């Protein structure tokens, strides 16, 4: 009632002008452009976000579909593909698709590289955070950054021209094989693990350490009993990230591993990985051929493993935030 009454009486000039200024969609041209530009900015930003989604989703869907073709259209049994060791898809009469040695090679290189790199990385991270607290970080960050920046082909070239000949000269093997692969990839994931591990160790609260020192514990006792257990989930994350990088590394491994699709029986024997076989053959198989499809299936295994690594990292980081 009162509202109605107010609405009927003509508003005083002064009041209506304040209202005009403050109510949205005032018909001023200035206001229109102002809002327009704000809206345009918002759309621009949303487009950027949308493209990130499109890229990720389409990448996943396309690669999954392409990777399934060999099973759907070429009659290859997925179980055979994953667990048999008769990789010979190029055979004109009887192509066989047992990719187990290749998958095994990827896991072997990854595990070996992690075994080599983890102690050195965590040791370095401990040096940066616990031993040389004042200058360790400053001195070693640039080292890490340089190692991160060196391209993988350069690591491969070093493997090819330095490590492979060295192994060949000091053993009765040809030099190519798991061992140089392990060394090259191990070097490549050193900086990844070290920098994340150092961050993790940095974030351990000082009170925790001081409490241990106050009880008369030595530095090593503090590290082993207090610091490492407290940082464990983060350190695991660091190692898994390093392994993810090792698993997907292509050209450096390809240059040193020998690319033989049988299961190696020692570190000195040549082997192959998912990435190296894809790298070698993807460019020279006919699009649409079963061989080509088999390579895409290897790509699918690679993609799946990448997702599994991501899930593991998520799991670890959730555990970290919970604890």
């Amino acid at each position: 009632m009162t509202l109605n009454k107010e609405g009927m009486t003509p508003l005083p000039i002064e009041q209506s002008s304040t209202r005009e200024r403050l109510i949205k969609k005032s018909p001023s041209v200035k206001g229109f452009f102002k809002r327009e530009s704000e809206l345009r900015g918002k759309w621009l930003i949303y487009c950027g976000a949308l493209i990130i989604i499109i890229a990720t989703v389409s990448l996943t869907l396309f690669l999954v579909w392409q990777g399934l073709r060999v099973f759907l259209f070429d009659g290859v049994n997925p179980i055979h593909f994953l667990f048999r060791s008769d990789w010979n898809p190029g055979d004109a009469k009887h192509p066989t698709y047992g990719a187990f040695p290749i998958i095994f090679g990827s896991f072997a290189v990854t595990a070996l590289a992690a075994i080599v790199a983890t102690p050195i990385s965590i040791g370095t991270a401990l040096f940066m955070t616990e031993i040389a607290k004042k200058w360790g970080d400053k001195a070693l960050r640039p080292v890490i950054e340089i190692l991160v920046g060196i391209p993988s082909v350069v690591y491969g070239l070093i493997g090819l021209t330095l490590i492979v000949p060295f192994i060949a000269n000091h053993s009765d093997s040809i030099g190519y094989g798991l061992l140089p692969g392990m060394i090259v990839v191990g070097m490549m994931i050193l900086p990844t693990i070290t920098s994340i591990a150092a961050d993790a160790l940095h974030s351990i609260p000082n009170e925790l350490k001081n409490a241990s020192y106050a009880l008369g514990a030595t530095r090593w006792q503090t590290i082993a009993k207090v610091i490492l257990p407290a940082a464990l989930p983060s350190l695991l994350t660091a190692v898994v990230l390093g392994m993810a990088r090792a698993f997907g590394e292509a050209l450096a491994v390809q240059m040193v591993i020998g690319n033989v699709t049988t299961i190696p029986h020692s570190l000195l024997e040549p082997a192959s990985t998912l990435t190296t076989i894809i790298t070698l053959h993807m460019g020279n198989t006919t699009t649409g051929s079963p061989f080509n499809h088999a390579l895409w299936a290897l790509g699918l295994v690679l993609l799946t493993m990448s997702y599994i690594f991501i899930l593991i990292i998520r799991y670890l980081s959730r555990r970290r935030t919970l604890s």
Partner: protein
Amino acid sequence: MVFVLEQQEGKELRELEPKEHILNIKQLDIYYGNDHAVKDISLDIEKNAITALIGPSGCGKSTFLRAINRMNDRIPGARCEGSILYDGVSLLDKEIDISALRKEIGMVFQKPNPFPKSIKDNITHALKFHGITKNKKRLKERVKESLQQAALWDEVSDRLDASALSLSGGQQQRLCLARTLALRPKVILLDEPTSALDPISTGKIESLLMKLKKEYTIVVVTHNMQQAARIADHIAFFYQGELVEQGKTEQMFNHPTEKRTASYISGQFS
């Protein structure tokens, strides 16, 4: 030239006939999620006067102040109930153009927060956004005028292109005041504007505010009882989210009706 400008914009901004209260806050409740930060506050703010909000920290002064120009909108979970009438317009309405509102009701914060840009750009930033003028000469005039109003012109007139971060804390705070004044607001909200400053800078800001109240309505949150006594015409005492008492400064200091006011003013808790 300046004269013409004043006249034009005077028309647009200063056409109000004198009126007692420019802001009428009625039964205002503000929540952060389940946290009831401001409880049922009703308060009228007199035009062209300084109103000081006092009270122990955490009692909701900032929350209340920020509600007036809707700075709490962006805080997730913050909710506002009741009414704030500004010149008869309900500020909590959905149709309010927040940008226009904040142009008219400006805000100066506790910590000096100049943009990491030149002194001049600090002032022209909002002028350009609001499309007040693109004319270089007029922009320059506004810069000078607002810096003069904020008593900063003499100190910085020869280095308008220097970074605002090179100024001292007190100068930075006056720059923040100047960039608010450049928009020719009607109400200026200040949230503990001198708590981060030394006594000399504080004195400068205080005398500035006393001067500015002739043209502007000023609402200032302060922690400092002497400051409130020195500059305020009206005082509102907040305690645990409630408005305990409000009135003219002399009355509040000399004859507070509430016991809590008396003990706060005499410094028995803070």
